[in-house]
Structure formats: C-alpha cells, structure tokens
C-alpha cells in the first residue's frame, strides 16, 4: 500500500513535468503528435525505472560513508548519476534504432537528449533527498515516469486538437504550447495540497 501511495503521489501530485517543470525541452518539442509523444513517454518511463534503482544502489552502497571506501563520497554523486543515465540512454537508443527505425527517425535529436532530460537526473536527486529505500525508489521512478508520460500525452492531444481552433497565426504551435503548459501547471498546483496518505 505504501508503494502504491508513492506511485500515485509521484505520478499526480508531484508530477515531474507539470509540478516541477522538469524535462521541458523534450516535453515541448516532441509533443506535436500523440504518436511520437507516446514513444518518448515510454522511453522516459523505461529510463527512469531502470536508472532509479541503479542510482539508489550507487548512492547507498558506494557513496555513503558505510560503503566499501569508508568515506563520504557524495560529492561524486552528480557525475556518477549522469554517467549511469547516459549509458542507459545509449542502450535505449541502440534498441530503438534496431527495433523501430521510423520511431528512431521521428524522435531524432531528442532521444540522446533524454540524457539531459532534467526529469531523469532530477528524479534521482529527489530520490536521494527523500531517503527512499530500494523498492520505494523503484515505485517513485515508475510513478514519476508515468506522470511525465501522462503529461506529454495530454499536451500532445491538446496540441493535435488545437490546430482546428482559431489561434492567432504567430501564437500557433510553440507559443500556444507554452501557454497551455502554464495553464496545466496551474491546474496541477491545486493537486499539491492533497494529502496522499488520506487516499487509501
């Protein structure tokens, strides 16, 4: 039950995209159609779900002062976390290139950019600051990825529909996406007041 709680909390209440505005670059650039948004969203869930436990183990078994080196090595946290994330993204890139070349081509430069998607690194840093244990950090990673996935699907669906609306020409596309994200963010801010332990 605790794990379900963390999953729901990280997916909806502390949504990485709409509450913390992390991973905005790929969120805005790949949300033109639901199809590419879907692909990127899945890739983000996958990368977050994998990197979170690996980074948890690095943090607790390698960097903590109880680790093999016996000293506090947490100043290496950023570099090690980003190295893990980069190698995982490289892996995902190679798999997608093999399995689905059309998806690979449509994701273009934004696939390598998952590495620098702040949602991934931000997720790992949140995991450290919230002091989750291993299973909780997996739930947090999957929940955070799922929330990001939902957010990018939602904005992609809105952007697909808004083509038919009478938006001023200069505001079409990117400008409207920014304003929509701001509005969605305001809506999600009202979810922040909810106590997840009350939903049981």
């Amino acid at each position: 039950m605790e794990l379900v709680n963390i999953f729901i909390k990280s997916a909806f209440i502390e949504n990485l995209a709409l509450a913390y505005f992390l991973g905005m670059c790929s969120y805005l650039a790949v949300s033109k159609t639901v199809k590419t948004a879907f692909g990127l969203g899945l890739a983000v869930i996958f990368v977050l779900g994998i990197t979170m436990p690996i980074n948890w183990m690095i943090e607790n078994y390698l960097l903590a002062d109880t680790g093999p080196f016996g000293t506090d090595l947490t100043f290496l946290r950023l570099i090690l976390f980003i190295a893990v994330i980069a190698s995982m993204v490289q892996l995902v890139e190679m798999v997608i290139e093999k399995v689905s070349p059309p998806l690979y081509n449509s994701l273009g430069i934004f696939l390598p950019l998952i590495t620098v998607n702040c949602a991934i690194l931000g997720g790992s840093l949140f995991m450290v600051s919230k002091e989750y244990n291993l299973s909780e950090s997996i739930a947090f990673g999957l929940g955070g990825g799922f929330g990001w996935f939902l957010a990018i699907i939602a904005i992609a669906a809105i952007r697909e529909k808004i083509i038919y609306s009478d938006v001023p020409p200069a505001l079409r596309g990117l400008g409207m996406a920014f304003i929509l994200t701001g509005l969605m963010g305001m809506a999600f801010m009202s979810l922040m007041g909810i106590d997840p332990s009350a939903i049981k």
Partner: protein
Amino acid sequence: MAETKVLEKKESGLSFGKAERKLLTDPLDSNNPITVQVLGICSALAVTTLVSKAFVMAIAVMFVLAFSNLITSFLRNSIPKQVRMIVQLVIIAALVTVVELTLKAASYPIFKELSVFIGLIITNCIIMGRLEAYAMSNRPWRAFLDGIGNGLGYGIILIIVAVVREFFGKGALGGYKLFGPGVDFLIDTSSISWLSWYAPNNLFVLFPSAMFVIGILIWIHRAWRPNLVDIS
C-alpha cells in the same frame, strides 16, 4: 603536416567573415535557442525570478557552452559514435565544476543562491543540443563562436523574462524596490503614494508565469518574423 596546417588555415583559421558573424547574430534572432530551438527551458523557468540570478546563470551557461563546443569540436573525429554522449557529458561536467568552484571562490553569496542550478547546467539541454547539432560536425573556431552566440541568445531571453517576472512579482528590478510597500536605500517607496499602491503579484514568482511570459515572447517574436511560424 605543414601542408595540412596551411590548408586548415585557408579553410577556417581564426578568420571573422560574414559566416562567422552570422554564427553570432543568428541565435539572437532567427535561431534563438529558447524561442526557436526550444532548448534549455527548465533552467529558464527556475532562475528567472530575479534579474541578478538570471545574469550570473547566463554568463555561466555561455562559458560552459563555448568551451564545451570548442573541446568537443577538437575531439570530434576521435570520439566513437556509441560512447559520444558519455564523452560529451564528462567534458560538460568538468567545465561545470570549473564554473562552480570559480563562483564559490569569487562570490559566495551568489553561489549559495544558485548552487543547485549551477549543477543543473550539466543537464541543460542547450549545451548537449549544440554539441550534437553543431560541434560534432564543425571546425573548432566556428564551434566556439556558435557557443558564444547561443549563450548570448539564451542570456537575452533569460534576462527579458527575469525583468518581467521580478518587476511584476516583486515590484523590483535588479534587487532595487521600485513599487509597492517596502524601503530601499535609493527610495522609500512606502512614503511616496504613487509608488506604494502596487501589491506584488505572487503568480509571477511561481513557475507557470514563466511559461506565460516565454509564450508571449514567442508570440511577439513570431509576429515580427512570420517566417518562423510552424503550422503544427
């Protein structure tokens, strides 16, 4: 060896012609990293509550961008494709550490205020984006100029957004109170009735307002340059 050197100089020595000037001016306008390329949004949202924060951040990003472009461009032919991201990230992380330590030594209060965001320059997509899109396929001098240009384009947007947000959100500019209740060493705004009526709008301190401000900036930019409009 001597011959290749001459050839190199002919093609792209430290010349500064039309193409090089374009590298500097394009990112300010028709190829702006934030409003056109959509890179580096996260930090633009986080550091733009105060003009001073935005300014330091812009300088830091410009430095990291220019030198990571330069170094990557020097190494571009010897980096294997499969591990290029990791190599790029190591370059970026090393430069970010240089910036972090320099700032810590030079101005501790600003470092305190910015510390998290300086670390997050590593994950600023603008740097990785320029490395992938430009430095991996161009000569060092041009890559360096491209880095400076994109840093400037990023900084300008950052400062415009910060001016709007600080002005409306705090009734201040660069830390000096201009409107609303409060006393500054320049002017006592609470004693002058036409300055003290303004109640700071807290929405402008929150993240969504940055989205609105950037959205409206994009609107203005594209109304002025209609060829940038994409239909989707």
